[in-house]
């Protein structure tokens, strides 16, 4: 296997739950991310899926060092981001950038496209005015926007175009890792396709490592090399995208995959659905053992005893289910 470019080791992000107005008392802990480990090679696209509240966004933000990790390491190209000083971290940020879900909220409405892109460039190195002009124009072309829009404000663009601006801004500092948190969820289907194509193309051309966070499994399957499925702060399954989708190992992944509607009436009729009962449990008070066991069809007494580790199932796939071999 190629050398790991990004290595996440036993990453934990816990949030305190406090009560009281002045004398705050810690009454509990939300384990939003609770022991996540994986590694990515250069240029790899990882799809991170899971339902709302499973911690996928918090994981993304923790890797980005936007939220300090409670425990664990994020090693990017040999540097542990979690242990860098404030100053070093700021310098290192040029290597990793983030794209957010809502292109209406993530761009400053008072900055033109030029200002937004130029600010990002100036933030990380000294750069001459003429070079900025040149590079802004080149960037806009790269993301499929005409450079003549350079003096326009975000409100003058459509949602898809704004997401292109957000992508251009992330690319402005020439990062090596991009985390895109639900980048197409706010867009219409016909516009989604444009952004998915663009991200796939950029990743290929620039050897960008991409973590694509989404709740939409069909989008993730399409763009990713590998998929990691999260449930209540942990990765429960990880493997090559096609395999995770077609032959899921973990009972939760099975239910998740079968719940995704397919826009094909014939196939829809023939499908066997695994309908889960109940809702995902609260991360404030997770069930003992495997967090999925109360909703799982294959659960045994053993499942509530210990939290199952993410273990190798075969050469490329890993799953966190003690009965994985029995049920597959």
């Amino acid at each position, binding site marked *: 296997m190629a050398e790991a470019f990004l290595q996440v080791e036993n990453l934990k992000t816990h949030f305190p739950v406090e009560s009281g107005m002045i004398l705050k008392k810690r009454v509990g802990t939300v384990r939003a991310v609770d022991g996540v480990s994986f590694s990515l090679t250069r240029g790899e696209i990882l799809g991170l899926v899971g339902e709302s509240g499973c911690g996928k966004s918090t994981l993304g933000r923790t890797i980005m060092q936007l939220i300090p990790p409670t425990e664990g390491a994020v090693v990017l190209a040999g540097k542990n981001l979690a242990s860098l000083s404030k100053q070093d971290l700021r310098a290192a940020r040029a290597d990793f950038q983030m794209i957010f879900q809502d292109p209406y909220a993530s761009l400053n409405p008072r900055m033109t496209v030029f200002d937004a892109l130029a600010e990002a460039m100036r933030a990380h190195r000294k750069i001459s005015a003429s070079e900025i002009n040149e590079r802004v124009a080149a960037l806009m072309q790269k993301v499929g926007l005409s450079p003549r829009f350079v003096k326009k404000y975000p409100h003058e663009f459509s949602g898809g175009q704004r997401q292109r601006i957000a992508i251009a801004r992330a690319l402005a500092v020439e990062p090596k890792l991009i985390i895109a948190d639900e980048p197409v969820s706010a867009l219409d289907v016909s516009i989604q396709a444009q952004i998915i*194509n663009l991200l796939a193309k950029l990743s290929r051309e620039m050897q960008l490592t991409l973590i694509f966070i989404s709740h939409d499994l069909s989008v993730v399957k399409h763009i990713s090399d590998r998929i990691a499925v999260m449930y209540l702060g942990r990765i429960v399954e990880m493997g090559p995208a096609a395999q995770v989708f077609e032959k899921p190992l973990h009972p939760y992944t099975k239910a998740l995959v079968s719940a995704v*509607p397919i826009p094909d009436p*014939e196939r829809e009729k023939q499908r066997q659905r695994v309908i889960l009962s109940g809702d995902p449990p609260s991360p404030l008070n997770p069930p003992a053992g495997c967090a999925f066991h109360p909703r799982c069809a294959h659960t045994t007494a053993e499942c509530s005893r210990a939290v199952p580790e993410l273990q190798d199932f075969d050469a490329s796939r890993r799953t966190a289910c003690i009965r994985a071999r029995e049920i597959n």
Partner: protein
Amino acid sequence: MPLLEVKNLRTYFHTRNGVVRAVDGVSFEIEKGQTLGIVGESGSGKSVTCYSMLGLIPQPPGRIESGEAIFDGVDLLKAKPAELRQIRGKRIAMIFQDPMTSLNPYMRVEDQLIEPLLIHQKIERKRAVELGVQALQDVGIQDAANRIRSYPHEFSGGMRQRVMIAMALITKPDLLIADEPTTALDVTVQAQIIELVKRMQAERGMAVIWISHDLGVVAGLCQRVNVMYAGRVVESGPTASIFRTPQHPYNRALQKSIPALQPKGAELYTIAGMPPDVSKPFVGCPFAPRCEFAQEVCRGPVELKPGDSGQATACVRVQNGELKL
């Protein structure tokens, strides 16, 4: 006779920036017990179509410019408010996208749930509460007798949507209009809600209009589908042929741009440009500026006409037999 027949519905919004033609000549019908899907991108007029029928369009700025919506012999668009109130919430019920904001946070579920019964039927409160508990059980809420005393915030999103469905169905309506009811929910919860609606429909034989931007949901649930674009129905027909043999170039392009239907990693088909600004008048086919098959003839008037593949298509070139799959 169809349960509901909508003819040439036009709903315009008169704003300071011009006349927004949100719904521009929509006709369709739905039979008893049938499920009709309305799909389209945001702003295509799917919701406004249904809101217009129920008199839920704020007027002004909205105005129903023309059309009829005949429900069991009554034209909903011309009905007096008192007459409409007898139908809305009783014979036609509606559920909305966001179960978080469509329940009143200050009222116990019990009071909201039985409100339609108290309004529309002569019934004692005690009996209504019994029916309310039954309705909650029917939608799969456990311990309903106690849960009915809870407030909406004590329920999760999926549970709140169940409460909404229980409330909509408590008067045993003939038609349920569901406006993106699962869009705000997780996929596993979405699957639960879809199964629930299917089951309730089979048990009670009611018709359902399901509005969604998600073609997958519609494919699995609906018998017929209307595809909307820029305030018009551009294609309409049985679900199988809408997906199997799309005729209208917009419908074709839409199917080609969905990752779920394409081989993994393949470049997705993209539709150039953006949906038209419906506040600017245009002639001819609204999709023509983005259509790869557009020709001079597309600037002329176009109507939804039945074709030979079982669906009706609003494309002049398809109607002339010039575009074959």
